[in-house]
Structures are given as C-alpha cells and as structure tokens.
C-alpha cells in the first residue's frame, strides 16, 4: 500500500499552516496530475460522511488521499469548531498512513482562505493521488471552489421544492449531484426523481452531462455508483485533455 511518509506528512502539515498564515507567500510548486474533487452543500447535508465513504473507496484502489475540510470561523472572536474530522473516523482510517486529513478554518474575510487555498491544494497534490476539498456550505470559498477543482460534487438535502434547484446558483457548476437519502426525510425518493429530471438533463459548457445520484451517507448504500460516476468524470476530463493535445 502506498503511504504518505512521516517527513512528507510533517512538511505538508507545516506548509498548509504557512500558506494560511502568510497568504502572500510566494513559492514554486511543481505541477502534479493528482485529481482534485470538491464537495459542496449546505451544513448538515452529510458532506463529510460522504467524504469518508469516498476516501475508503479510493484507499481500496491504493490511491493516497488528502482531505481538506473547511469550516467557518466565528466572525466576532475568531474561534472555530472543526468537527468534521470526526466523521472520517473508523478503525481502518484512524491510523491509515495513506490518508492525510486537515481541518481548516476560514479565519474571516480579511485573511480569506481563498487566497491561500489554491496553494494549499497545489501543494497537497504533490503527496497524493486525489485531493478532496470540502467547503463550509456558504460564503466566498464556496463560490470560488469551482476554480480549484477538477470534479465538483454537490450534496443536496431533499428539502423544499425541487424546482428551486434550478434557481440555486451553485448547481450550475457541479458535475455530480448526490441527494442524501436520509431516513428522516421521507420525501427523498420523490425529490430525487424530480432532481434527476431537472438537473440530469443539463449539460455543462464542456459537454459533460450532469449526473444525479441518490445515496445514503450513513449506511453507504449506492455509494459505489457515485464513486463510479466520479471516475467517469475523470475519464471524461482526461479524454478531453488528450483530444486537446492531439488537435
């Protein structure tokens, strides 16, 4: 199994802190073709629980994973409770050296994480095969996340009228949608059906047809299908890359 070594782990941890502390820090970071996946969705939608499932799937394929979990800081006093890491725990993952997890606080508008995020991601790519970025659910970072990732996943809670999906700004950008099929939402099947009709018919500018899945983050049901969808999108990107190169 591939690992992120002790010195690599230390270096990555330290550099993330530095990028965040000194947003203007200049540094040459080599290019890497590691895959970057972004996960957005409102608070409580189940993002980090899905990330756990994705991380497990990637680790099974022996891909090294860096997960960056972003949460908002309190505007008033600067504190942040970074609790998402808890959702990525299991006996296997807890000590898995092929997995690196980092929780990041947005630290307010002035020190916007957005300035350093691209560097943090670029640096993380050096040590991994896939970087997963989770955003706080609202605010600046969320809108800009599209620029930093290859594949964007949006987790939706089956709440409210599915027609509203068309209005939501973010859904314009995502490649893959996952409706969290939680037990306490009785209408999730119905919601999924219409989400599929509305979103699943749409194409992004690059020709990708949006994919919509219904999956349960807790039980993990239908997760393999979502993971397969992620890989399909990567292949799509790779193919486009090669056609671009040959033409």
């Amino acid at each position: 199994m591939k690992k992120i070594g002790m010195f690599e782990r230390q270096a990555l941890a330290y550099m993330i802190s530095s990028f965040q502390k000194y947003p203007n820090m200049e540094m040459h970071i080599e290019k890497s073709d590691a895959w970057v996946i972004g996960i957005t969705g409102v608070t409580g939608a189940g993002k980090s629980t899905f990330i756990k499932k994705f991380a497990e799937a990637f680790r099974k394929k022996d891909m090294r994973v860096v997960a960056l979990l972003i949460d908002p800081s309190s505007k008033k006093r600067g504190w942040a409770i970074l609790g998402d890491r808890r959702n990525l725990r299991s006996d296997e993952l807890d000590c898995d050296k092929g997995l690196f997890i980092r929780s990041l606080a947005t630290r307010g508008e002035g020190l916007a994480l957005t300035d350093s995020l691209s560097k943090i991601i670029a640096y993380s790519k050096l040590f991994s095969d896939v970087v997963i970025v989770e955003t706080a659910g609202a605010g600046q970072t969320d809108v800009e996340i599209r620029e930093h990732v290859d594949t964007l996943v949006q987790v939706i809670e089956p709440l409210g009228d599915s027609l509203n999906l068309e209005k939501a700004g973010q859904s314009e950008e995502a490649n893959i949608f996952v409706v969290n099929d939680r037990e306490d939402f009785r209408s999730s099947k119905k919601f999924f059906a219409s989400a599929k009709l509305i979103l699943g018919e749409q194409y992004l500018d690059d020709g990708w047809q949006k994919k919509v899945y219904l999956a349960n983050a807790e039980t993990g049901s239908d997760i393999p299908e979502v993971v397969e969808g992620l890989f399909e999108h990567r292949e799509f990107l790779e193919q486009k890359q090669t056609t671009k190169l040959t033409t």
Partner: protein
Amino acid sequence: MSLENGFFGPAEVLIDYLAKLNNPGKYPFTRGIFPEMYRNKKPTVRQFAGHGCARHTNERFKKIISLGGTGLSTAFDLPTLYGDDSDAPLSRHEVGWDGVAIDTIEDMDALFFGIPIDKLTVSMTINAPAAVIMAMYIAVAKKRGISLSLLGGTIQNDIFKEHIAQNEVLYPLKYGFRLATDLMEFSARHMPKWHPVSISGYHIREAGSSAVQEVSYTHGDGIAIVDELIRRGLKPEEFAPRLSFFFDSHNDFFEEIAKFRAARRLWAEIMHKRFRVPIPENYDLKDTKLQSLWCRMHAQTAGCTLTRNQPLTNLMRINNQALAALLGGVQSIHTNSYDEVLCVPTEKGVRMAIRTQQILLEETNITNLVDPLAGAYQVEYQTEKIYEEAKREISNIESFGGMAQAIEELYPQKKIHENAIAEREKIEKTKNDSAKKYFSAEDENSEEDIAEITEEVEKRRGYEKEQKEKLFKFKKQRYRANVVGVLDKVRRAAEKKENLMPVLQEAVESSATLGEICGALRDVWGRAKEISGVSSAMSRKIALNITKGYKFPRPVRVLLAKGGHDGHTVGFYILRDIFQAMGAEVIHLGFRTTPEAIAKAAVEEDVDFVGLSALIGYVPGFFEDLKNSLRSFGGSHIEIIGGGIMLSAHEKYIKEKLEIKNIYVPGSSDFDEIIQNMKKRVGQ
C-alpha cells in the same frame, strides 16, 4: 428564597395534605412508598464491587457474603461496559481496572463460582451491552440447573441516560433502545423476580445537571420506557412493579431531601394519570397495580463533590449525603468511598463506606421514624418547587415528541452542559474566598494517608496480562465454525424485529465473546453517532467570564481527544468552551481514540496543543503512549494538556518523567492554572 426573612411560614406554604403528601404508603407516596418504611425494613446496604479478572471479584464477593451481605453488586471494567474484549486495542490500560473484566461465558461462570445465585440478589451495573451480559448470566444459571424464575437482582440497562450523560453507547439510540427493551420484555415475561432496568438520574447529575433536571430527565426516560413496553403488548402491572430508579444524593442537604420526595410524587402521578394505573382502595402490598405506582429508589452519594487533597474529609461529605438520602426515604444506598477521587476504591475505602451507613442505620434512631421532616415549611416548599419545575421540564421534553427525540436534538445534553459550566464558574469565583480555602488545601501528611492506596493500585497493573492470556486460551480451544455460524445468526436476528434474547443466549453458549457479539450487532446497526457538541450561546458567555476575556494573539490550534473507552465529558466540553472563548480553532477528534490516532491527527492538523482526558485506568500509561506516538509521527513539539483521575504519585510521574506540565485533576487543580500556562506559551 424569595422571602425577606429567609424562612418560610404557614402563610407561604399551604399544605394540601391528602393531595400533595398523604400518609406514608398512600398515593402519591410523597412520604414514602411503604407505610412503615424503615421500621419494617432498613435500607439495603448495597456496595458496588468488581476488579481484576473474574476470580479476583469472586473472592471479594465471597468475603462480602461472609460478612453477612445478602446482595451483590457488580462493577464491570470499561472495556466490558463498551462491549469490547480485553484484547481490543482500546482496552489497553483499562482491563480489570475499575471493575471486573468479562469477555466470555467462562468468565461469567468463574465470577459466580460457588455462589448460590438462586438464593441471593445480584445487581449488575452495565448498560449498552446489558442484554449480552444478561444472556451470559442466564446461560450460567441454566448450566447450573437454576430456573429463570428464581433469579433475583437488577441490571442497570438504561440506555437513555448513557446518551444524555455518560456516553457509554454502542449503537444509534433507536437500536440501543431496542436491545434494552428486548431484555426488559424478556425479563417481564420470564423472570418475575428480576429488575431489568434501573432508570438512572445519577449519571445525569454527576455530569453537572441541577436537581430538577435530574428528576425531569430520569422520569422522562421512564415515560419512554413505559410507552415502549406498552406498545409491545405488556400491561403496566406486568412490568412496572419491576422498574426501579437510581438517584444522586448531592451536597445541598434540604434540596436533596425534597428531591427524593418530589420524585416519588411525580412518578406516581405519571403512572396514574398518564398510564391509567388506578389508585387502589385497600393498599395490599402484594398488589401489582399498587406496586406500579411506586418510585422505588436507590441512591448513591455524589462522587463529583469529593476532594482529592484531603481524602479523609470526604468521609464527612459522604455521611451528610447519605443522611439526606435516608431522610428522603430511599430503598437502598451506596455510600462512596472516600478515596474514589484518587482511584477505584480500595478495600479500606469500601469498609469505611459501609461503616458510614451502619452508623446512620444503627446509631441515630432515624430508621424508627417515617418521613420525619414532613410538614417542615422549608422542606415542603422545596418539595413542591422541585415537583412543579420538573413537571414543566418534562412537558418541554414532550414538546419534542418524547425523550428519544429530545436527545437527538441534544436538548437535555445542552441544558446539562449549561448548568455544569455555570457551576464551574461559581467554583472559579469562590475558590479564592478565604472561607473556602480549606477545600483545596493539602494536608501535610496526605502522602501517608494514601500510601496504602498507592500500593493497592500498583497491584492492578497485572490484571490485563492475566485476562488477555485467559481470553487467548479460550479463543484457541473453541470450535471456530460454530462461532462464525452463530454470529451470522445474531446478525440476521438483528435485521428482523424478533426479541434478541434467545439468540444472544445461544451465541454465548456457542463460545462467542462479548466483543464478537456486540460487533455482529454493530455490523447491522452501525455505530452510535457522536454528537457534535453541546455548546450554546449561554455556555459560551460563561466561558468568556471564566477566561476573563483573554484572547490568544493568533489563531491557536487545539486538538481535543479522550483516551481509551471512557465517555465522561463534563470537563471535556467545558474545556472546549474555554478554548473557544479564547479564540482557538478547536479540532474535535471525538471519543474512543487510540494514542496513534490522536498523534496522527495532531501532526496533520499542526496543532499547538493536544488535550487528552483519561479518567479511568492506568492514567500514566495513556500519556506515555501518546507521548511515544507523537514522537513516532514527528510531533514531539506539540504540547500535551492532560486531565484525569490519578494518584499524586502518578501525577508526579507524568509531570516529572514525561515532562507534561499541564495536568488537570478534578477536585484539586483548576482551569486558571492551565489558562496561565497557555498564555505563557502562546504569549500575552
């Protein structure tokens, strides 16, 4: 007190005697569930015992019996309480420490070897895996040819209070509750002498709740249990006589007495008005309908009130608290040991605890009186107050749709946390008060006082090896295919709705271990979801007072974790609010973490501090492991802040040998010190 004079008189306290008090033994039982109370039967002296492997506890049990004990009370070690085997990674430093280690049916058999379990009552303090432990007990009885109907005793089996306060949970609440009710239902149908649940407020109070919250949430749990058993087709009189309650006896003397009285009245009214149990005309004590109205109570003195520096002074606290329980009319009492803030009680500690009760029962003449404080304006005022407030809080719970839903919304957890941090603020405020200094002062000869304790504690370190060897041998000798087959059967039964007791019994008889069975259930039900935290606007405000507005000059990062299985969170959550108040970024890793997992996370998160709390077990071991793990992940520069219950010798070892300066010990050090040390490290 709302009155100018500071006392109550007949004008403020109107006693409607028949409706609110009535005679002892008469509805609503405010004055006691029996007409003659202790004149007829003195409260049971039920002391909790358990340590090491089954054979060690068996020896202690036999000693208790030889001293004239008619009941046994079993304490299990932390791995057992969490349904883990002694060889699980998280069990390190905990095996046999604060109770007996039980992994297999063979252990259970050895625990009661040579003890007539058909003749004396056995109490077992265990919750999440209670059904599996009970299955082992039943299997042992069966092996000895003892009929189930002869087994008498109690198993705690209260999963609600675990989710609310103590966090010894294995599965999501609804599945944990199903397992608990399977046991209750089975017991109601087949074991007429067994108490299959002890609805507990003790742990809620110890987690920092108020007296009113203690009563409200306990009765709220009770209502949910009764509801479910009725839904399963039982009539109240078929199970309610076997429900028992377990309360804390805290420091506020008259408030506690009032609490016991109010709790009895409130429960009787719940059973009568809500569950339609009639008030009997002739009070026949054998009538199960009458018994269904009773709030039978066991009380334990409050462990959280004890001091560590002068352990002997705890004897007086324990006496006061036991006296309150006695005047409140409880059915049985457990007096704590004066040395339990230092470690798990030693033999001397237990002996003194029993003596305390014996002195109260034999020398004060109190047991010849029935509810002697009735009619006292103060006591009746407070009883009425607690009754009214608890009733209101129960209706708050109802507004969520019941206790299970309220717990899922974290309502009781948050209320308890708010109360706990407010209490902490009071302590911080008054600790420099010269009149209060005595509490934390250190006795000059305290080292001598605890010399014996230190010696006994050292002995406990050998248990882990012995138990693991025993388990290894057991696993090697059994027929593996049988185990695999029966575990699969457990999984399939868990998927369906059938009562799990028979299949659990089959599993233990086929030599499946506790850890394997609990694991099989986990495969189907998943793990309990950890709550994200209990901070509220109010608790954060109090934290700001405690930190006096100090804010770190830069975003300091802190990782908070707990070592081993332990799930006590009072200090953990208070610390979290305090860090938050100082503007830190707090990474909450959650509970049940191995040192390796903590170290890996600390390095990846590039934190300044790791906070580790280790309450039970060989505490220096947890810190040593963490220190070593941090080193192997390249995180030696990260500072450890620790907390836990430990001997001063161990504290010294951690501070001097492991060079961990910031150690917080309940009952002696305070948060101020830690805050000062951090300021020093981070800069003003």
